[in-house]
């Protein structure tokens, strides 16, 4: 009897279609995550003659062409995180506690700001404040002295970074402030604390995990960002740019230097993740439940200051968008803006550059579908199945791209897939796969969160009334997680269509995306800025229209 039922259960296990799907997903992750990273590790630890060596790391540490950018990257990331938090935390606190007119509009705009293309800020601020920028030139002609020559340099990177990331911190911290049970502050008041002391000693510490997580996300965006320092860094070197230049110029000779720098980058972002996890784990108090925070009235000067602060921050956050849209409707002549309205830019865009638009949509669309299917499989197995080996393996592997900067990711792909057994370089497929794998962690996490809301008994109930597992998955699980799948997919799509740092290394003519066109235009003085602006406008429309529809339908936030 014992023998019979044991063999039955193991056979039933192998008949489970999730097992096969899980193995397929695992295979995909091994090929596209582990295999390329192994190539980077190999390249970093072997000498040009093919022996194991640590010399490359010693050389890295001794060469200030690398150590200076490393220090710069870390310092700038910390500065941006701190600056963005300084802007975001007070605003979030006021918004969470006081009645602010136009709250919904402000929240919508902030959500939009978190999904703006990563290089947009640099490009637009360059148009305004570059050495030949609109504002700098106008000021020079009018004889108004400016405190700086141009935005190029470390100050510019931090300035752009702060306005690019503050919305991210704001939304996280705002949610945390809203979730604080008012009873906790009342308790502080009841034992004789003043309101401000209660805020300082009770509310703020409760929001620390959200602040730390927001700062981590903001800092990592800048640390891994290639477009911003490339466009406005001037002579100020940061790691992604150095790695990119090194790899692109050296690729024929030896990829070892870039690989070494890549590993350093991954180490830094891994350390940042560990630090964030430790701080959050130590202080994560469950403060959900309880009452909603009541919104208090705000009058007079504080009210004016609050509104002024919020809208100034929003305006600065959206300067890039406004500049790009505006300049797309103005005439440019050999890199110089003529104040003359025109639709010429759009005419030229659709005549000459329709293909990148279509390609961007196709690449991001296919990659998004792949990420959704794989995300559902992995999330379901992680949340529901007790697979002893493939379960934990999938759960950990799928998160690896989360700490891989786009530049590193692309180098791994090139090293791994420019020779047999898998050749992908130069094809369109490599971009699709890169988008798919890079955004998989985000898509998977959003589905996993939704699945956690579907109690297993809901599926069991369906089986008890006669639905086989496949049927109960279709009729019960899918409808319930559909909103999360759609919103996770949309956010993934938006991040893919605005991806630059990996695309710029992986693309090959004719597989050019919108982001590549905009970037190459922005890098060349005298190039058709109008067309690039028009294309950025198209990109913005393709990002914000889906986001708007999504937010209206599901009321979600994108992080």
């Amino acid at each position, binding site marked *: 009897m014992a023998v019979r*039922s044991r063999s039955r259960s193991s056979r039933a296990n192998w008949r489970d279609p999730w097992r096969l799907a899980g193995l397929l997903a695992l295979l995909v992750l091994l090929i596209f995550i582990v295999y390329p990273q192994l190539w980077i590790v190999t390249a970093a630890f072997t000498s040009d003659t093919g022996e194991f060596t640590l010399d490359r790391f010693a050389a890295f540490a001794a060469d200030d062409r690398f150590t200076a950018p490393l220090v710069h990257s870390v310092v700038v990331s910390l500065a941006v995180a701190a600056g963005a938090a300084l802007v975001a935390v007070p605003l979030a606190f006021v918004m969470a506690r006081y009645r602010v007119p136009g709250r919904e509009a402000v929240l919508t705009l902030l959500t939009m700001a978190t999904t703006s293309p990563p290089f947009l800020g640099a490009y637009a601020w360059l148009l305004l404040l570059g050495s030949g920028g609109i504002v700098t030139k106008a000021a020079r002609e009018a004889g108004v002295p400016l405190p700086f020559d141009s935005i190029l340099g470390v100050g510019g990177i931090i300035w752009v970074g702060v306005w690019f990331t503050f919305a991210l911190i704001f939304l996280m911290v705002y949610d945390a402030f809203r979730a604080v049970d008012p009873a906790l502050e009342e308790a502080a008041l009841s034992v004789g604390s003043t309101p401000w002391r209660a805020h300082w000693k009770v509310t703020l510490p409760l929001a620390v995990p959200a602040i730390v997580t927001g700062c981590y996300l903001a800092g990592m965006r800048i640390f891994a960002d290639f477009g911003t320092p490339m466009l406005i860094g001037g002579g100020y070197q940061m790691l992604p740019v150095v790695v990119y230049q090194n790899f692109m110029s050296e690729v024929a000779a030896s990829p070892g230097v870039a690989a070494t720098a890549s590993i350093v980058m991954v180490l830094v972002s891994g350390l940042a993740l560990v630090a964030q996890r430790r701080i959050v784990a130590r202080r994560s108090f469950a403060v959900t439940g309880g009452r909603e925070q009541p919104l208090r009235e705000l009058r007079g000067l504080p009210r004016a200051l609050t509104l002024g602060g919020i809208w100034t921050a929003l305006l600065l956050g959206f300067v890039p968008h406004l500049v790009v849209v505006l300049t797309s409707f103005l005439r440019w002549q050999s890199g110089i803006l003529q104040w003359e309205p025109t639709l010429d830019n759009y005419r030229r865009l659709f005549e000459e550059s329709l293909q990148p638009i279509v390609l961007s949509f196709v690449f991001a669309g296919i990659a998004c579908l792949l990420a959704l299917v794989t995300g559902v499989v992995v999330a379901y197995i992680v949340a529901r199945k007790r697979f002893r080996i493939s379960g934990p393996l999938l759960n950990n592997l799928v998160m690896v791209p989360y700490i891989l900067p786009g530049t590193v990711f692309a180098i791994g792909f090139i090293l791994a897939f420019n020779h047999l057994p898998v050749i992908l370089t130069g094809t369109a497929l490599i971009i699709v796969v890169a988008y798919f794998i890079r955004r998989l962690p985000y898509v998977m996490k959003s589905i996993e969160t939704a699945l956690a809301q579907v109690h297993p008994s809901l599926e069991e*109930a369906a*089986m008890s009334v006669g639905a086989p597992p496949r049927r109960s998955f279709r009729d019960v699980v899918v409808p319930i997680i559909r909103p999360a799948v759609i919103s996770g997919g949309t956010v993934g799509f938006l991040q893919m269509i605005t991806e630059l740092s990996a695309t710029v290394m992986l693309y090959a003519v004719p597989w050019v995306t919108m982001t590549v066109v905009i970037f190459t235009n922005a890098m060349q003085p005298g190039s058709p800025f109008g067309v690039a602006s028009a294309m950025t406008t198209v990109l913005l429309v393709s990002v914000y229209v889906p986001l708007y529809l999504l937010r209206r339908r599901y009321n979600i936030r994108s992080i």
Partner: protein
Amino acid sequence: MDISIEGVSKSFGETTALESVDLRVPSGRLVTLLGASGCGKTTLLRIVAGFETADTGSVRFGERDLARVPVWKRRIGFVFQSYALWPHMTVAENVAYGLRLRKLPKQEIAAKVAAGLAMVGLTGREQRRPGQLSGGQQQRVALARALALEPDVLLMDEPLSNLDAKLRIEMRREIRRIQQETGITAVYVTHDQDEALEISDLVAVMNGGRVEQIGAPEDVYDRPETTFVASFVGTVTLLKGEVTADGGLALGGGATVALGRPPGPPGAVVNVALRPEDLRLVDAGAQFTGTVVRSSFQGSGRESVAELPGGEHVTFEHRRPLATGATVGLVADRFTVVERDTGLA
């Protein structure tokens, strides 16, 4: 359709959940699996349903061996502790889902849904979503859904534990009525002894992955076979002692009590179970004399605890108030000798 469970064992990793359980549920009867959390009762129910696979042993509905039959072909109705209503479907759709899977004609489905909702008293709520119903109403929908397919057996996993006390009593009577009207064989898991005693034809008391006793509610209460059963079901005083030559009981504390008749052959060590209602306060001729250490008012009567000279505590029922510290004399009108000592609940 009767249910036979034979030699079912199950372990999760190192922990043994069930140890060779045998149980027979006669056709048309309601059996409760009663026990504390972790005793294996839910695991046993889930094995009967097919959600878990037994390591060894067999489960049969009638003559049908279920070893190779998956949940969706077992013809069961299952009611979950968490209700498990599908939030994206209306009440009517929840009840109709299984019928639709059977591809029954539309009118027949509509008629069955209407009849099912009428049975649980929810006519008129067809188009509500589960989230718009109270807990009690949700559990009624779950019951209607489980019964809509006219299954062979109805399995219920602590269906009332998420409801408040008053509703729980109302709903358990409702479940009993529906079970008797439909004549369905039912297994009901609970940790609440009052619930088990009220609604069951048979109560199976479980402890540590085993069934300690199965019997009618009266048998389990009046004639517990083990000390665990005696102490889990209802309030009880268990006195352990050696039977003396003159038929008394020599307690561990040194005192000897005469119980009216010898609880066993002289020299035997026995456990004597006394229910509070079996003890009576007397002014003279007391079998036990002790000091009141605790007395509580319970509405219909009072329940007090007296400490015997040897330190044993005896719980008894009475009506008039008693002061703590008072000396009382008690007589046992009846007592039960418990066969096996399996520890206390």
